[in-house]
Structures are given as structure tokens and as C-alpha cells.
């Protein structure tokens, strides 16, 4: 299978969906002529024309509003928000409009739209360019939340998101921008709502999202002689495939959730809520969330690293859990 970088895989997904469905369109800052500051829309304007792929002014509310209105009237827009941090200046059309319009109208419309954005720290860009805000969107009824971790999924989930008839926020991990992975030549989609077991293990279930999937896998590998760690990547938070997680926890009796966002009031807490509600008696010890340190992301590398869960932190947490 060909090896692609994550950004190329996403670009292919956009290209294929633009080709497949005349209603799909793509816009945002610098996505047209330049092809996206991360290159995720490279040459797409040249291929599909400026009617379907275009640059917008620096107006996040207008960008998301355009997507909502377009979805209300028959298109299937993909709107890029360059960093998820910037959605704060235009969040209303997504959370107060798109998420609610179908319900408020008594089901009169579908809102097939994708907000295409990225998240995370590790690039020394400090507090306003490093956030993980998935918990906000997962809490808003009416939005689907997608977080790919691999190149394969980045492509397959993006295609599924574009084909979904509901508003979806698709958040890729910026630190994996360059990650290479195998992508089949033939077309495929990765359905929303299906977690994947990335590694089998009998002793501890680690649910990890986005960038943390890789750190969890590395930790599992490092501990392979010591602890059998099962690593699960939920891939989408809404819908959340809790059954796959439950099946694993019922086997291992132990649950560690790892995510980059602030531990407190984060998505890990919800996974724990659902697991204890349904598998309390199968747990041999207290489930734990390992997340970000809960300060605004510092600029300097040494603090930034301390703020994000590292492989060593996962190893330490896993060892500690195995002691009880």
C-alpha cells in the first residue's frame, strides 16, 4: 500500500469527495489559491474551481455561518478553521445554530456540514494555538465529534464525516501533520461511531484519543514484558462506541483514559462515567484519567512537555494501576 503523510491523506479525502458529490464544497482562510497553510487543500482549487474551493476573509463567524446556510439549502460544505483555538471568535453558528436547527425546526432540515480543524500542542505555539476543545463540542447536543489518530483514519473518517447528514467537527492532531501511514489505493470510509482496538492486552484497558493513541501504543510496547495493555482508540466521541470500551474493560478490569486536553471536566471523565455506570462490578480498581496539566499551554518546550501526557507518564500510571 502507498505510504502517505497525514495531510496528504486528508487532502485526498477532500479531493475524492469533491469529485464524488457535486454538492461538496470547501472554504476557509488560505485554502483556495494557497492550498491551506498545512497543505490539506493543495491544488484542490485548481482541480475543482473557485466556485467549489475558495478563500474567505479572516471572519470565522462568517465562515461557519456560510457553512450552515449552505447546508440548510442543499450543499455539503466543509469549512476550515485553521486552529481549533480560533473557533472562539465564531462559535455561534456552529453551537447555537447548526447543532440546533434540525431540532428547532421540527426536523425540517438536515445539516450536512463539516468543520475541518486541528488541535493540540507540541509546537511551542503557546496558549492560543495549542488547545484541545473537543469536550465543548461533545457536550453540545446535535454535533458529532471526530478525532482521527492515524493516517488511514484521517482519510476514512473525513470521508465519512462529509457523507454524514449531521454537523460534524473533525479535529486532527497538528503534531501528526507529518506522520506517514499506509493508505489503500481503493476507496474506503471509516464509519463514525466505531472504536478500534489498536492493540490487544489482558491486564489494562487504555482508551486514548488523537495524538495520545501513539503515546499509549509506545507505552504499551515498552511495558509489553510486564503488563498486557489493550489500547482502544474511540475515533469519534460523538457517537461514542462505548460497547467496544466496555468489552475490553470487562476483560481487563482496569481502565486508564489518556487525552491531551486538561484532565478536569474533559472527555475522559465522561468515558469513566459511562464505564462505571455499566461495568462497575467488573472493575478491579479505580479508573483513571491522565490528561493535560490544566494550565494555559506554556510556550517554552520544557513546560509544554510537562503540560502534556508523555509516554513515561502513561507507563507510570499503568504500573500504578497494576499495583492495586
Amino acid at each position, binding site marked *: 500500500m502507498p505510504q502517505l503523510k497525514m495531510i496528504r491523506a486528508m487532502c485526498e479525502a477532500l479531493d475524492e469527495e469533491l469529485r464524488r458529490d457535486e454538492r461538496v464544497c470547501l472554504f476557509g482562510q488560505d485554502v483556495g489559491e494557497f492550498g491551506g497553510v498545512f497543505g490539506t487543500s493543495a491544488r484542490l482549487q485548481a482541480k475543482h474551481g473557485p466556485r*467549489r474551493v475558495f478563500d474567505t476573509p479572516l471572519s470565522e463567524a462568517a465562515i461557519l455561518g456560510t457553512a450552515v446556510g449552505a447546508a440548510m439549502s442543499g450543499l455539503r460544505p466543509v469549512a476550515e478553521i485553521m486552529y481549533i483555538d480560533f473557533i472562539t471568535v465564531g462559535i455561534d453558528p456552529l453551537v*447555537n445554530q447548526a447543532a440546533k436547527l434540525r431540532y428547532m*425546526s421540527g*426536523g425540517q432540515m438536515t445539516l450536512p456540514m463539516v468543520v475541518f480543524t486541528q488541535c493540540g500542542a507540541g509546537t511551542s505555539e503557546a496558549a492560543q494555538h495549542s488547545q484541545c476543545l473537543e469536550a465543548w463540542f461533545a457536550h453540545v447536543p446535535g454535533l458529532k465529534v471526530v478525532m482521527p489518530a492515524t493516517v488511514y483514519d484521517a482519510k476514512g473518517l473525513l470521508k465519512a464525516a462529509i457523507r454524514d447528514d449531521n454537523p460534524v467537527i473533525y479535529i486532527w492532531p497538528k503534531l501528526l501533520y507529518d506522520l506517514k501511514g499506509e493508505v489503500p489505493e481503493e476507496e474506503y470510509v471509516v464509519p463514525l461511531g466505531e472504536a478500534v482496538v489498536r492493540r490487544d492486552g489482558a491486564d489494562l484497558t487504555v482508551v486514548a484519543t488523537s495524538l495520545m493513541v501513539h503515546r499509549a501504543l509506545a507505552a504499551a510496547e515498552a511495558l509489553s514484558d510486564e503488563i498486557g495493555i489493550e489500547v482502544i482508540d474511540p475515533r469519534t466521541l460523538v457517537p461514542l462506541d462505548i460497547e467496544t470500551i466496555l468489552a475490553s474493560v470487562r476483560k481487563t478490569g482496569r481502565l486508564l483514559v489518556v487525552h491531551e486536553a486538561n484532565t478536569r471536566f474533559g472527555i475522559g471523565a465522561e468515558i469513566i462515567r459511562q464505564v462505571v455506570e455499566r461495568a462497575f462490578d467488573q472493575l478491579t480498581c479505580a479508573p483513571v484519567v491522565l490528561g493535560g496539566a490544566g494550565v494555559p499551554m506554556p510556550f517554552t518546550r520544557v513546560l509544554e512537555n510537562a503540560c502534556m501526557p508523555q509516554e513515561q507518564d502513561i507507563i507510570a500510571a499503568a504500573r500504578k494501576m497494576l499495583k492495586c
Partner: protein
Amino acid sequence: MIDVPRETLIQFLRTMYLIRGFELKMLMLFQRRALAGDFLGALHSYEGQEAVAAGVGACLRKDDYQFSTHRGHGHAIAKGLDLNKMVAEMFGKETGCSRGRGGSMHLFDVSIGQMGGNGIVGGGLPLALGTAYSALYRNTDQVTVCYFGDGAASQGSFHESLNMAALNKYPIVYVCENNHYAATTHVSKNCPIENIADRAAGYGIPGAVVQGNDVLAVYRAASEAVARARAGQGPTLLECKTYRHRAHCMVIPEHRPEEEREAWLARDPINLFVAKLREENVMTQDDLNRLAAEVEQALVDAVKFADASPFPDPQMLSVDFWAN
């Protein structure tokens, strides 16, 4: 006057009568129900502003899009929303245009381009970009009308939207209903210049101040703006100077200077227009009475329909929530 066909003139009056009658009925019913503890949410009366919706609505095709506001009953009626469905929605019934899920601020009927009211002041402005883009995309000549108030003109979304619409020559008619107050706050505290319409220059688009209580003046200005939009010449900003007769909403007490109110009541849009119709012998007193009676009957029937309709079934709370 002479250049407007008689049927159109009668349509104006009919729409204004309907709106006025609707508002008076709702106010009475809501007050009665509120007393009975059966609270039906906020109620923002359109009384006094009828000429705006009647004049603009008469320029629109059924397939044109319309974004309304929290004060949107008049807009919906002028776009042709079925009265039965509308009253039923106000009452929270399953037969309502939004199946009782939306209420007064969220009157939807996608089949006639009524894309909803909005509880977020300025919330419709970004969405209008999307239907306008979509119309260009699909190569139709559909126009989008976007209503908003003098208060909403202070929102960031006003700026982002007019800017993007101007850049892309979107077929949008922006109708600012300057009724001189945002809740209890006079327009002079929201806008440091005399005319909001003058801001059109900042986007290089036409702007016009319109006598909003003169339905013919509104109709003429809107006709021109709609024609421009339909011809691909881009957006227009119309500022209709008007006044609401009631307090901001049912639960907020009146607070405006008595003389100001009286001066505006003397310029009641219906009275002004009726006087003109009589003066120019377009309608006799009999014609007027017949029209009023017909409208009253329609309203009585609608209230009956709504009263007889069932409330939604709570078992259906989450049904149809997601598309697919």
C-alpha cells in the same frame, strides 16, 4: 401609487392586517395564559413595523430565502407561512410549523424559504451568506433576505457578513429594521452615527434609508434591492426607520418617552396606508371592512385549529434528533 397594481396594494394591506391581528390575538392569549401559569415563553410583538415585512415580502418569490429574528411573526406571515401552523407553533403544538419545538422565535417553513427566526441577536446574518452562496453555486437566481434590528447592527456578525457578502457579490438584501430600541436601549447608545445605512459605504455596496412605516416606500426600495441581487449585482443594505408599538417583549415593562410613542403611533403604518387607499379611491370602506373581517376569520380559525391540536408526545423527545 399609480404604478403599483391594485392587487399588490390590497396584498400589502391584507398582510398588514394579518400581522396586526395576529399580534393582538397572541398578546391577549399569552397574557391570559401567563396569568394561568401556562407560560409560553417570550413574545416579541411586531406591531407597528408591519409595513416593513409587507413591503419586503411582496418582492419575494416563494423560493427566495428569508432569515428572520426574535421579532419575526410579521416576517413569517409576509413570506406566506400558513396561519394554522403558525398559531399552533406559538401554542407549542405538534401541528405547529416547527412541531412545537421552536416556538415564537423559531418559526420555520423550509418549503417557502422561511429559514427560521433566531434567538441570537445577529445570529441570522452569517447564515444568510450560506443560502446566498448556495444559490449562486446552484446557479439559481434565488435571493436571500436577512432581517435584523438596530441593536443587531452592533454585533460583529453584521460586519463580517456584509463584508463577505460584498466581496462575493452575494444576492442578499439586508433589511435593518431600525425601531429605535434594542430592548430598553435607545439606538443612540448602539450606533454613533445617524443612519446605519451609511455603513454600506464601508463595504462598497448601496445603502438606503427608507421610511419604514410607508409600505410603498419599503416596497420600492426592496424591489430595487431584490432586482439587483437577482441580477447578480450583489447585496444592498436597507435601513427601515420604524417603531414598535409595544414594549420589547411581554414580560418587560414599557419604558419609552410618552411623546415619542405618541408621535410614532400617529404614523401607524396601517392608518397611513388606509388613508392613502381611501384618498386615491383604491378601496372603499366596505372593501376595507370585508378584508378586515376575512383576516379576522382566518385568525379565529387558526386559533381554533391550534387549540384543537395535540401537544407533542414526550416519548418523542429525542426521535428524529439526528438525521439518518
